[in-house]
């Protein structure tokens, strides 16, 4: 036990991580102490700041996943797949949080956990597509094949999302447009979104590095295994 806390040691030396951490602290402070309390809903309305941030993260994650997947198909470099998978995973996490936070907000605002409101429906479909892609990816061992399947599916999913959004928008009539906001609220929302975007980008970068490291490690392991001397030469 010469290095008892390797993880913590790594974190302390990670200035980018500290920066992101303080940004999140800043946005939390803004959300709870600077933004005015909404008149009708009270403090529950503060969910909206997080909700908008993660919803944006989910869409951005899906787009990055799609673009990097297509880039893999073109360039055949596994590095693109690491980006694609990392962005997809963070995007999926965001999509999950979007559903949860949206549902919590809806419970207070509309008195129900779930309605077939177009954006809710669309984000649920997006979540299903994400889930399907990751399920299929996890069934494939060969990293190149996994990347290729992921790339094709990312392309298919990316073409599907606009159609999902259109279909759900027309499905049950009207949808709420972005409501008028008090300027201070708007300003806090903007800062929150920026801070959380930094967090997502940081998570994606960390995850990508981890994926790359895992792949390198298993390659080393496999090649060490396979280069055992052949007996007769």
């Amino acid at each position, binding site marked *: 036990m010469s290095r008892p806390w390797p993880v913590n040691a790594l974190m302390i030396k990670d200035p980018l991580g500290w920066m992101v951490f303080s940004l999140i602290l800043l946005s939390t402070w803004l959300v709870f102490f600077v933004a005015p309390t909404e008149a009708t809903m009270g403090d529950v309305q503060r969910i909206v700041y997080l909700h908008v941030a993660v919803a944006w993260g989910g869409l951005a994650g899906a787009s990055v996943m799609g673009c990097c997947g297509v880039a893999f198909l073109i360039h055949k470099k596994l590095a693109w797949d690491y980006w694609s998978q990392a962005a997809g995973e963070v995007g999926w996490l965001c999509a999950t949080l979007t559903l949860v936070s949206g549902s919590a907000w809806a419970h207070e605002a509309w008195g129900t956990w779930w309605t077939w409101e177009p954006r809710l429906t669309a984000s649920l479909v997006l979540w299903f597509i994400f889930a399907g892609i990751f399920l299929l990816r996890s069934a494939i*061992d*060969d*990293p*190149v094949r996994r990347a290729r399947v992921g790339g094709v599916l990312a392309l298919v999913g990316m073409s599907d999302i606009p159609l999902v959004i259109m279909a759900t928008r027309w499905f049950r009539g009207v949808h709420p447009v972005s409501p008028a906001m008090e300027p201070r609220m708007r300003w806090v929302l903007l800062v929150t979104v920026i801070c959380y975007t930094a967090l997502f980008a940081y998570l994606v970068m960390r995850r990508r590095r981890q994926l790359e490291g895992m792949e390198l490690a*298993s*390659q080393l*392991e*496999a*090649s060490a*295994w*396979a280069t055992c001397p*052949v007996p*007769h*030469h």
Partner: protein
Amino acid sequence: MLRSFPSVTSEAAPSSVPSGPRESRLDGRPAVTAANLSVAYGRVPVLREIDLQVAAGECVALMGPNGAGKSTLLGCLVGVVRPACGEVSLFGKNARNRDARRQVGFAGQEPGLYAELSARENLIFSGRMYGVQNVNQHVSRLLEESNLTSAADRPVAQLSQGMRQRVAVLRAMVHQPQLVVLDEPSARLDTAGKQWLASLLTRCRDHGQTVCFASHDVAQCRTLADRIVQLDAGRIVAIDPGRVHDGDAWLRSA
């Protein structure tokens, strides 16, 4: 353009007068060039930095223990396996090029036959995909020459393993490809079947077709191949001269 084969079942003696196309192998034009080929399945490397040239009209056998990479190398040559790095060119074109593919016939370890269709229908379908003219007569002739006429109209599912293997090899040759690639073609064949295969491959050579095949049968490789490439653990470990019988001694001296 179609060339009519002479009958396969009559033993085509190797000492018969060498016909015209045979000379083409001596012009040194490479049919297959594999350069610096490496392949990994998953994380396990299967081929490592293979360099191989096969001249037009040459017959090359691949030998080696199970898992040496024979099938993968053949797959790379025809373009079903994409190498991690390195390049394969067939007749000067990339192996994945569609015009290059037209010149290649491949029978892999799976027979590649539709079990619900008859042998004849399988061959005709494949011939049509490659744009063979008069495909019905051509396939009838092929089946007749291989003594398969009686089994030709039964579904492939009802054929014996050996019969299926023969049909699979014929399927790879139905469009008279310049390059014939066979993965263990004699694996499920009996003695008569191996003789049939030998005369078929001999005739391919006589017509100037390039042949690459994998095999575990040393005697067969010695009699059929111009060169025997020994693979082990994804590397070429030796290239032996093949074809020790006298009828072709003139070739090795050339």
